[in-house]
């Protein structure tokens, strides 16, 4: 499994103490490096729970996850924070940008978390990415002054800046119209190809899923279908 970037082993998640909800009932998947994947499923199927666990935001009740060959259950809080910062990029349905900062400042935050100073090279890379998403002219605007589609593009650039191994996107277009949905998917695809970053996209939109290389369907906490597109 050398070319795998994510491996999950008998992953289970139970929420609650008195009333227990078995969100994941034993998930074994591996995601290959540089691929573009979709996790689909109905609301409450456990797809977002799986994504949060891959992103080291949540911990499994049973089983474990390997990111780039390293087990996340063996890591302490600081190591997990470092993993999220360096190897993982997140794109959420609601962009989750910081309203106190401008577009360019938001983009640079993941880099600044691990580097006290922003190098000229990183700044240049941020500008290139902003140019690629057609937002170079808006970079100094406060994030609240941008439209929903523009905010989501800023969030994509933010996720890309540290050149992570994986980008986890939870319903990244759930809040956008069809035109912006297409723009966002095309951008993600482009960056997947250009930088070889692995994308795992959670969506309930089968049309969107059709555009990916692999579709994993989660149903009632289990993998119901795992379909890979042949080249």
């Amino acid at each position, binding site marked *: 499994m050398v070319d795998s970037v994510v491996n999950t082993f008998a992953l289970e998640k139970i929420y609650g103490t008195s009333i227990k909800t078995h969100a994941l009932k034993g998930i074994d998947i591996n995601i290959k490096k540089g691929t573009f994947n979709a996790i689909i499923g109905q609301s409450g199927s456990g797809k977002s729970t799986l994504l949060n666990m891959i992103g080291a935001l*949540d911990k499994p009740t049973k089983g474990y996850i390997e990111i780039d060959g390293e087990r996340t259950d063996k890591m302490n809080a600081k190591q997990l*924070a*470092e993993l*999220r910062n360096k190897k993982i990029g997140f794109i*959420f349905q609601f962009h*989750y940008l*910081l309203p*106190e900062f401008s577009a360019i400042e938001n983009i640079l935050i993941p880099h*600044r*978390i691990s580097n006290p100073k922003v190098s000229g090279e990183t700044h240049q890379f941020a500008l290139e990415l902003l140019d690629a998403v057609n937002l170079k002219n808006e970079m100094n605007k406060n994030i609240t002054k941008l439209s929903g589609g523009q905010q989501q593009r800023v969030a994509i650039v933010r996720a890309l800046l540290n050149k992570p191994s994986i980008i986890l996107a939870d319903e990244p277009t759930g809040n956008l119209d069809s035109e912006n949905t297409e723009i966002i998917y095309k951008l993600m695809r482009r960056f997947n190809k250009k930088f070889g970053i692995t994308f795992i996209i959670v969506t309930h939109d089968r049309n969107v899923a059709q555009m990916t290389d692999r579709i994993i369907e989660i149903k009632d906490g289990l993998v119901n279908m795992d379909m890979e597109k042949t080249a």
Partner: protein
Amino acid sequence: MKLAFEIAWRFLKFSKKQTALIIIGIAVGVTVQVFIGLLMQGLQANIVQSTVGNSAQITVKPSETGKYIANYDEVMKEIRTVDGVKNVSHVIEFPAFLRLSNSDYSVFLRGFDFEEAEGIYRFSEKLISGNFPVEKNELLIGKDLSDKYGLNLNSEISLIVPPVVFLPRTFRVSGIYDFKNSTLNETWVLMKDNALVEIGLKGDVASTIEMQVDEIFMADKISSDVKDVIKNDDLTVSDWKSKNAELLSALNGQTVSSLLIQVFVIASVAITIASILAVSVMNKYKQVGILKAMGIDNSKTFLIFLFQGLILGIAGSIIGMALGVSLLVSFETFVKTPDGQPLVPISFDPLFLSISIAIATISASLASILPSRKAAKLDPVEVIKNG
């Protein structure tokens, strides 16, 4: 560290109204604390100054009543070598009667070297009319004695000094003083020391050696140093503190109550900051979750909110200090005694002000620890899941 500070700064800047409210809260607390603290200090200094400032703070007397210090010049020379002692002077004194139209009134004759004793008594400021005695038959009387018996400048008076009989000479009032103390003004009759030596017929002696000290509250320690230096069992050294135990305990009581008020004010400021910052953490719940998802660790998250407390504390305490000082300046300027002097003279002690700023800032930072820990412990997945 820099990022944590910048985020803290932006959080505060973004919520301008809330930030202004907290800073005003801290500033009001510090204003009250500085105002009360400095007012009490001024009041105490004023009480001490008016009680013992213009009098002897350490006295050396013969242990036995009726005795005199014969070698007072030598003793004074030794005393002047003690650290912290100033304005050493000698006085010769004994009771006398003032004879006015066949009635006698009890007075206390005190003989000074006026120049030497100026440091302690500030006679030149107290003399309200006339001049210092030059001739041996000249004397100064107090304002109240003058008013009571209708004595004026150049009035002639007779004195009887027990056990010496009626003095054949008459004395002339050369000046009138006002010590702002009716007992002293009524009983002390001041003359040149050599004039009194002649009347007393005891030779060149002193009844008491008086002095002041640089640090008024060190008088007891310096008094024992004086005792060590003069090494004379026939002489007793006493200081103002041992004679004014009640005043000291009143001053201590005042200090303690003033401190308590200040502590409660600062504590309430700290509690206010803690609760407002706790609300601020709730308000920034989403941002903390986002930052954690991006990989900020718990210690940096903690720092963000600690810095907020620090910034608020510094800003609030500096503004509070400025307000407190302005209020005191107004108080000093507008609240005056009938003779135009400030009711309470305030000294703007830089040490007290620095300590006030430091305490308020530290309290604000400590108050932010609890909310900061809460933020550090926040689970990002809760934010992500709940939006």
